[in-house]
């Protein structure tokens, strides 16, 4: 057990690509926590998707032993947190487990929207914050300007900002010293009853559920009988360890320390993040306040392209859900798509990550239906229905009014793209709340309906600003608006996978855009196909996909017979990737692409 004075617990706050994971890699490397031969990039990110996309999805932790210049050895616990807004809840709870933060800002880019969102969480958690300017070796680095920005926009003193290049290793020793000298040590009473925070939990195929804890008071040992105060579940600790970042057994953890335990817990759902862990015999008097569980905000249907793969999909979804309590699912049946699941996600990135993992790790081709947010449908009889799926929209004669979720969006954008960003927000029914300048960039705050953001807002924002804008949001609440259910009919058959709730004023342009897109995405058939958008029985947009007139191959001689046969094999395989709606075959990618608008 370590003396409280020799412990520092911290997290790193940064915008994506500002070098958070590289800095973590350097800290681990320079302190010899991981042997040189075992080192790899983004060492704390274990999922393929994390490495590929260069993002962190799950919080991770590492215990670093650091012999400081004062001759003492310190234990530094780093909790690495995700940067993307979809995973903001992971950030907030990780912040509760540590006392300080490194605020990493790219010295060539400056403060971004995600930096802001995360640093405010650190400030809310009463963190001491050490600003770190990264990438000072880049020619475009402007230390003075970015320091000024940190002071102006965030409001913290940047005079003593540590200047580093995580890539080359310059300044890393200064970061380690700043952690020891400038961050506070944790407080706690080792003689009090055990009080530990359940920071996170995940499923490991070999160990079962692994629980990350932060001890507040008391001590915890292997073999202890523990009680989870919120769930009331009791367990015996099988294993107690610290992460370096490999698991290393430890006899005891005391106040201020961070570690992991296993206790024959079957699934992640049996644990509640934020729960208080205490001894069954000698319980702490006051439990921690706990966290509000993360609520899914975006819903969509996931259906196997090949109906025969439904059971495989069920298995994949159940396995993923074991390890991700924020992802919800229930079975759904659709007239056209057969059996599938209605799934809830924290945001669109979360949706894409889960979908990618199912397609890649379980090799199942999926049809993803139009994402939807949760609408509150108020009925004439005074009751309220939470609508997750436009297909469940009740008969309008019974509906009094509908409310939709709104967000507060913060966008940082260089001046020259400001006009485009304002236009985009206005087009998406936004209400401007604030517009301020920070150096050469504008900070725009908008109140926006979440349903205008879930489809492709971020893609559009990136495209109109050539990637220079950054964006973050938080949910603010519900507001009534004039919302209607729009249906898409292909060859006069409604395709429920494409139904969506839209604002009445936006329905026509949205419907027209969808019909035009589908006309491009559906291949011509031997007959002409009307594609319509309708509200109730009223058609508001219509396109006609004309009939295929000629597809015959001009030349086909002796050398082409083999080629033709191979084409036939490909068509047989391709047929499995199409779904039949009445007489029309719609390719898998059409469902999600039909929702992406060009303007």
């Amino acid at each position, binding site marked *: 057990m370590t003396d409280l004075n020799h412990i520092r617990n911290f997290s790193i706050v940064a915008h994506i690509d500002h070098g958070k994971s590289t800095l973590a890699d350097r800290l681990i490397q320079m302190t010899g926590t991981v042997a040189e031969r075992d080192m790899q990039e983004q060492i704390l990110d274990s999922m393929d998707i994390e490495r590929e996309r260069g993002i962190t999805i799950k919080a991770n932790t590492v215990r670093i032993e650091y012999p400081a210049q004062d001759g003492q050895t310190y234990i530094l616990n780093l909790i690495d947190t995700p940067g993307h807004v979809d995973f903001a809840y992971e950030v907030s709870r990780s912040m509760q487990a540590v006392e300080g933060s490194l605020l990493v800002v790219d010295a060539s880019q400056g403060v971004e929207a995600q930096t802001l969102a995360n640093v405010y969480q650190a400030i809310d958690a009463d963190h001491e914050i050490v600003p770190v300017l990264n990438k000072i070796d880049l020619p475009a680095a402007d230390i003075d300007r970015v320091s000024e920005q940190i002071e102006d926009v965030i409001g913290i003193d940047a005079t003593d900002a540590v200047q580093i290049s995580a890539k080359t290793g310059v300044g890393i020793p200064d970061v380690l010293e700043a952690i020891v000298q400038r961050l506070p040590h944790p407080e706690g009473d080792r003689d009090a009853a055990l009080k530990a925070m359940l920071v996170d939990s995940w499923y490991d195929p070999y160990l079962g559920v692994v629980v990350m804890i932060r001890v507040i008071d008391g001590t915890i040992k292997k073999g202890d009988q523990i009680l989870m105060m919120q769930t009331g579940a009791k367990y015996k600790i099988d294993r107690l360890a610290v992460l370096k970042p490999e698991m290393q057994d430890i006899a005891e953890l005391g106040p201020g320390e961070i570690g992991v335990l296993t206790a024959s817990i079957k699934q992640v759902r049996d644990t509640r993040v934020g729960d208080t862990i205490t001894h069954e015999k000698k319980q702490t008097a006051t439990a921690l306040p706990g966290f509000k569980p993360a609520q899914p905000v975006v819903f969509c249907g996931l259906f196997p392209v090949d109906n025969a793969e439904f059971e495989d999909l069920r298995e994949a979804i159940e396995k993923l859900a074991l390890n991700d309590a924020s992802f919800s699912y229930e079975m759904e049946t659709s007239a056209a798509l057969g059996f599938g699941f209605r799934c809830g996600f924290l945001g669109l990135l979360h949706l894409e990550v889960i979908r990618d993992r199912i397609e890649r790790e379980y090799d199942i081709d999926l049809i993803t239906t139009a994402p939807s947010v949760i609408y509150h449908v108020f009925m004439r009889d005074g009751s309220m229905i939470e609508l997750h799926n436009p297909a469940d929209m009740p008969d309008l004669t019974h509906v009094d009014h509908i409310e939709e979720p709104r967000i507060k969006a913060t966008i940082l954008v260089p001046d020259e793209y400001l006009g485009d960003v304002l236009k985009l927000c206005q087009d998406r029914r936004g209400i401007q709340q604030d517009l301020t300048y920070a150096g050469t960039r504008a900070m725009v705050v908008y109140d926006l309906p979440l349903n205008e953001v879930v489809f492709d807002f971020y893609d559009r924002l990136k495209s109109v600003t050539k990637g220079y804008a950054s964006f973050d949001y938080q949910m603010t609440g519900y507001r009534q608006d004039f919302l209607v259910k729009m249906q898409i009919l292909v060859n006069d058959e409604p395709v429920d996978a494409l139904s969506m709730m839209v604002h009445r004023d936006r329905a026509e342009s949205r419907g027209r855009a969808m019909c035009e897109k589908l006309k491009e995405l559906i291949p011509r058939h031997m007959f002409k196909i009307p594609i319509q958008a309708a509200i109730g029985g009223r058609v508001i947009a219509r396109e006609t996909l004309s009939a295929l007139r000629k597809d015959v191959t001009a030349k*086909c001689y002796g*050398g082409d017979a083999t080629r*033709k046969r191979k084409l036939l094999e490909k068509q047989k395989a391709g047929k499995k990737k199409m779904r039949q709606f009445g007489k029309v075959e719609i390719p898998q990618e059409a469902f999600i692409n039909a929702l992406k608008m060009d303007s």
Partner: protein
Amino acid sequence: MAELPGFGLYVHWPFCQAKCPYCDFNSHVSTQIDHAEWARAYEMEIERLGEETGERRLNSVFFGGGTPSLMDPQTVERVLSSARRVWSFANDIEITLEANPTSVEADRFKSFFAAGVNRVSVGLQALNDADLKQLGRLHTADEGRRAFDIARAVFPRSSFDLIYARQDQSLSDWEAELAEAIAFASAHLSLYQLTIEPGTAFGDRQKRGLLRGLPPDDLAADMYEMTQQMTLDAGLPAYETSNHAQAGDESKHNLIYWRGGDWAAIGPGGHGRLTLDGSRYATETPRSPKEWLGAALNGENPENRTVLSQEEINEEAVMMGLRLAEGVEAALIPQFEEKINNINGLAESNLIELHDGRIMLTAAGRPLLNAVLRELLV
């Protein structure tokens, strides 16, 4: 109705003076060709195949390419002599050579005839100089017409090819050009819609979005329909998707492909179909001229052979046979009973016809062959 398909020999000559931007055939530009070595390689391949097939009656020989009109007429003569030694020639054997209409090649037509060639297929491709240039051809429209005049005077049977649905071609442009073509055509005519193939210069240009002026689908379909009508009116109906002939003047060699007959293929990148000891094989030789030549001269069999299952044989027969106006035996469609709803649907939509146990495309169905095949085979 359909006759027995017969047995043919395909000889691939892989060299050209220049590569055309639309062509995806196995062709190479080379200045150093040892004609005697190539002749010897072809001879050795014919001997080898003869030993495997045993005695058979040969109904046709086809010299394709590449540009076979650049072959030394002696090579053609040696190929034909060894084929005659190994197999017996049918009385009405058809011996076709593909020719480019440059003046150099036209001068050699008599020598090819003397070597035994009795049918020539001339690649005119277009009848105006601007379009010929765009297609990368080395001859002018005048040269083309002159070469074809010589060809039809020298050979008992002749044909020429045109490519339509070209860049910036209008319906009336093509109508005028086709009328001109029909006026001087002999008894056979091949009319191909320009197809952009991956791996060609046009294909690359299209991928980069730089190939402009191609007719939209509907215009291309109009051109196809007009072509069918004009050739029918002129007594040159389509007996195959892109081939037109007076009755009796169809290409015997190509009918072997479309009717599912046997043919041996020699030369680089040649594809054959051979029935040996009751199994039908798809054969394929290496595309590289050097590799093929080396193997053939070493007396090694350069072919890669795959046995075809009965279902594959039948599928091929349907895919190829439905290109013909005469159609195919309906019983060749694999799992015919399961496909009966699709077949009835196609018949109701007036895309196919069924009679006397045969299935054939209607005029409306012919341009939609791939869609029809999806219904019948996929």
